[in-house]
Structures are given as structure tokens and as C-alpha cells.
């Protein structure tokens, strides 16, 4: 009785939740097609802000840098993180504990603390800020996430498997690539995905360690948002599209593969 009378409450609540979460996203997509400068009145459909965005050199450079940094940081941090996690799973407990604690620092620390630490570090060494420092910083904060997502998979892995492979004459490299890596693949993939989106979306750390006119999308949105500029909406829509496509690919491809396998 009680239950059915109030069954609309959770439905309304979830409806409002979706509205709250997606309204700003939809809003920005809609206004990217606005034919006036206004952020509040929709005058009519137009693609002018997209034309403006694609012809704006700083914007296109920022998109390029964002993708470049995200791809390089993802590849490097995934490889480094996976190797480190495997090594870590076989290290002595003391070393493992210390490394895990330090590894957690960038994850637990407020981003701004990590950012100023890196800023002072690069400046103290006299490294000029730019693409290089941004890449180093991104690799630095992405790798811990890869380790955090690979390590649980390693813990549930039977350590004898690799030893068996070695006993049967596999070289260490073969044991690594043919026995260990395939079994921890789900962890590696989700770690890579986290690394990619962390890098792609990063603002705070990039903002502090960049220089020389090297911007990523977040920095550009931040600096441009001080004045009304609807090209930001077009750029934001592009970001939303890129991330959504990435997420769909990562989530749907395994499902399709699984379906094919069960069919075969």
C-alpha cells in the first residue's frame, strides 16, 4: 500500500537528477548553434561559431595540444604504470608499501598542491615551461591511476602462472606479454581510459605548469570565459562529443566482441 502510493517519488527524483546533470550540457550544445552572440536568447540556427572556431588558430592549437598531450600521456603512463605495478606486485612488502603511499599522494592531494609543487620544481631546475613540462606533469599524475587500476587485477592473479611459463622455457618477455599482460588486460584498459580522460580534462595542473603560449582546451575556456564568446560553446560541444565517442567506443566495443564470441 505504502509502497505504491509513493512510487512516483523516486521517479520524480531521478528525473530531476537527469535534468540537473544534463541541462547544462544540452544548454551549451544548443547555444553553440545560436546565430547571435547571446548566451541567453536563442535567435536561430547557425554554424557560424563552428566556422569561427575552426578558423581560430589559438583554439585549434589548443585542441591539438590537448589531444597530443592526452595521447602521449596515456601511452606512456599506461606502459610505465603497468610495468611498475607488475614489478610492485613482486617486490618486498616494505618497498611496496612506500611506493603505494607515494603513489597515492597525487591522487589524495588537492590538485592545486600537486600543481604548485611541480611549478616550483620545474622552475628550480630552470626548465622552461611549455609542452615538455605539461607532458611530464600529465605523465606524473596519470600513472598513479593506472597503477591503482592494474594492481587489484595482479593481486587476484596466480603468481605461479608466470613461473610455470618460465619453467616451460618462455623468456621473461614472453611470460610477460603472453601470460601476465593478457590476464590483467581489463585493468590496463580501464587505467588507460582513466588516464586519457584525466589528461584530456585537466585544468589545474596544466594551468600552473604551462607557458610559452601552449594551452589546452580547459585553459583556453578559462581565459576566454571572461568575455562572452560563443565559440567557447562550439569548442565545448566538440569536447563533449570527443569524450562521449571515446566512452561509447570503450564501453560498446567489448560488448560487441563478447556477442560475436558467444555467437561463434
Amino acid at each position, binding site marked *: 500500500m505504502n509502497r505504491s502510493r509513493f512510487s512516483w517519488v523516486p521517479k520524480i527524483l531521478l528525473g530531476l537528477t537527469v535534468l540537473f546533470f544534463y541541462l547544462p550540457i544540452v544548454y551549451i550544445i544548443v547555444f553553440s548553434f545560436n546565430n547571435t552572440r547571446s548566451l541567453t536568447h536563442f535567435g536561430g540556427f547557425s554554424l557560424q561559431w563552428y566556422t569561427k572556431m575552426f578558423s581560430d588558430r589559438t583554439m585549434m592549437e589548443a585542441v591539438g595540444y590537448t589531444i597530443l598531450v592526452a595521447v602521449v600521456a596515456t601511452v606512456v603512463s599506461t606502459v610505465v604504470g603497468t610495468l611498475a605495478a607488475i614489478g610492485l606486485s613482486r617486490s618486498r612488502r616494505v618497498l611496496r608499501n612506500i611506493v603505494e603511499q607515494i603513489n597515492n599522494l597525487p591522487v589524495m592531494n588537492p590538485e592545486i598542491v600537486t600543481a604548485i609543487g611541480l611549478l616550483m620544481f620545474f622552475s628550480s631546475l630552470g626548465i622552461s615551461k611549455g609542452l615538455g613540462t605539461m607532458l611530464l606533469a600529465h605523465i606524473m599524475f596519470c600513472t598513479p591511476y593506472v597503477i591503482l587500476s592494474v594492481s587489484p587485477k595482479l593481486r587476484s592473479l596466480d603468481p605461479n602462472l608466470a613461473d610455470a611459463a618460465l619453467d616451460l622455457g618462455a623468456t621473461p618477455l614472453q611470460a610477460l606479454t603472453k601470460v601476465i599482460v593478457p590476464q590483467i588486460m581489463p585493468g590496463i584498459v580501464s587505467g588507460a581510459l582513466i588516464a586519457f580522460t584525466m589528461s584530456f580534462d585537466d585544468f589545474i595542473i596544466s594551468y600552473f605548469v604551462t607557458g610559452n603560449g601552449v594551452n589546452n*582546451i580547459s585553459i583556453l575556456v578559462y581565459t576566454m570565459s571572461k568575455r562572452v564568446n560563443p565559440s567557447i560553446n562550439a569548442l565545448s560541444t566538440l569536447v563533449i562529443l570527443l569524450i562521449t565517442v571515446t566512452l561509447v567506443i570503450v564501453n560498446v566495443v567489448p560488448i560487441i566482441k563478447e556477442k560475436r564470441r558467444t555467437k561463434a
Partner: protein
Amino acid sequence: MKQFRSMVYPYVAWIAVMIVLPMLLIVLYAVTTAGNDVTTFRFTLENFARFFSDKVFLDVLWRSLFIAVLTTVICVLLGYPIAYAIAQRPEKSNMFWVFVITIPTWINMMVRTYAWVGILQDGGLINSILGFFGIGPVKMMYTTFAVVLGMVYNFIPFMILQIHTSLTKMDKSYLEAAADLGADRLQSFLRVTLPLSLPGVLSGITLVFLPAVSSFFIPKLLGGGQYVLIGNVIESQFLTSGDWNFGSAISMIMAIIIMISMYVTRKVDTDPAARGKED
């Protein structure tokens, strides 16, 4: 067994340089005076004294803590019912809802915060709707309301997901047992579900409070240039006034406050009051 052990050593060197060294630099700068070089350090606690003796900075600290606590409380009060409503759905749509909550967190935080500017503006969406009913316009941009809204919007998914996980991990037979023993729905919620989901609430609190207290672009975007939180002070010390020593001291103060609050949260977690956790 020891075959792949050496693979960790390059990473140990990497984190020593890239994680530990920068952290040490913050501590070093925080306790020294400006203008020192490698050979002469002048240690001082002046940077800390300057922060705690200046009313302007103390006000900023209190405001940051107030905003962060307010954000966290709202996230718990809104996030719990949402997580509960999702957990009550059939298992298949549970996955769907978790996906719905997760997607926005993957999209650039800056972009999503910027989106609120158009919605909250004086002639924006909310004020147009209010105006339709003859209310307003209500000033929302550049107010505490806008800043807290921006923070809740950005951080509440973490709260919902944490609570949802602890709700779905819960053993449903406890609820049957409670019902068999004569508890009504409210009683079994208050005495079984709520205590069992407390760990999720607590880890949600950490995940919301931490970014909320240190945030600096949400106040800048939605609160305007006049709206200063502790993150903004740190930013300006490093990027505008170039006082690294003072900036380092402020970030140490912030880090210590966060550590204390996390310690307190963990303490509550292991407290006998949260006994329901033991299963």
C-alpha cells in the same frame, strides 16, 4: 617470483623526482624566507604567522571551509536519496543509472561549469522561467548560491556513486531478517540500511570535501573576481604576486586542514557508533 621485481625501480626513481621532490619543495619554501639560494636557507615561521595574523586571510579560510562544508552537506542530503532511488531499481537499470551519473564526470569540469553561466545569468534560463511566473529577476551569478551550486553540480556524482556502491553491496537478507523480526520499512531503513551504508557516505564526504575546499576555478567562474577562496589566494601567490614562500605556507595549511578532516572522517568510520559496518 623475483623475475619482474626490477621493473619497479625506474618508477621508484621517477616518483622520487616527480612526486617526492616537489612536495619537499613546498615544505622547504613554506619555512624559509624569500630570496634564498641553495647555500643559504633562512628558516622562519613568518609565512604561517602572516596568514594567521591577517584578518583578510582568516576570513578567506573560514569562507572556504563554510562553502566546502555546505557543499558536502547538500551533497549528502541530495545524494543519499538519489543513490537510494537508484539502488531500488531492478539490477539491469541500475547499471544504466550508474552510467548516467558517471558520464558527466568524464566531461571536462571547466566546460560544465562554464555552461552554468548562461543558465544563471540575469536574463538566463532560470530567470526567464521565473519571469514567466512574474518573479525576479533574481541575481544568481556572482553569489554564494552560484558557487555552491557549481560545486554541488561538479562533485555530487562522487557522493552518489559511493553511497550507491555501499547500498548495492549490502546483504539484502538483513532487511528480510529485520522484516521478519517485525520492523517496519522506516525502522529497517534507520537501523539496518543507514548504518550499513555509512562507510559509503563517509568516503563520499572525503571525495566531495577535498576538491570543494581547494577549488579555485569554480569560484572564479561563477563567483566572479571578487569571490576569493583559499585556492584563489594560492593561485594569486604563485601566478600574480610571485610570493612562493607565502603561497607554499598557505597550501601547507590547507593540506593540513584536509588531512585533519580526513582523519576525523576515518575515525568516525571505525567508531563503535558505526558498528553496523561489521558483518
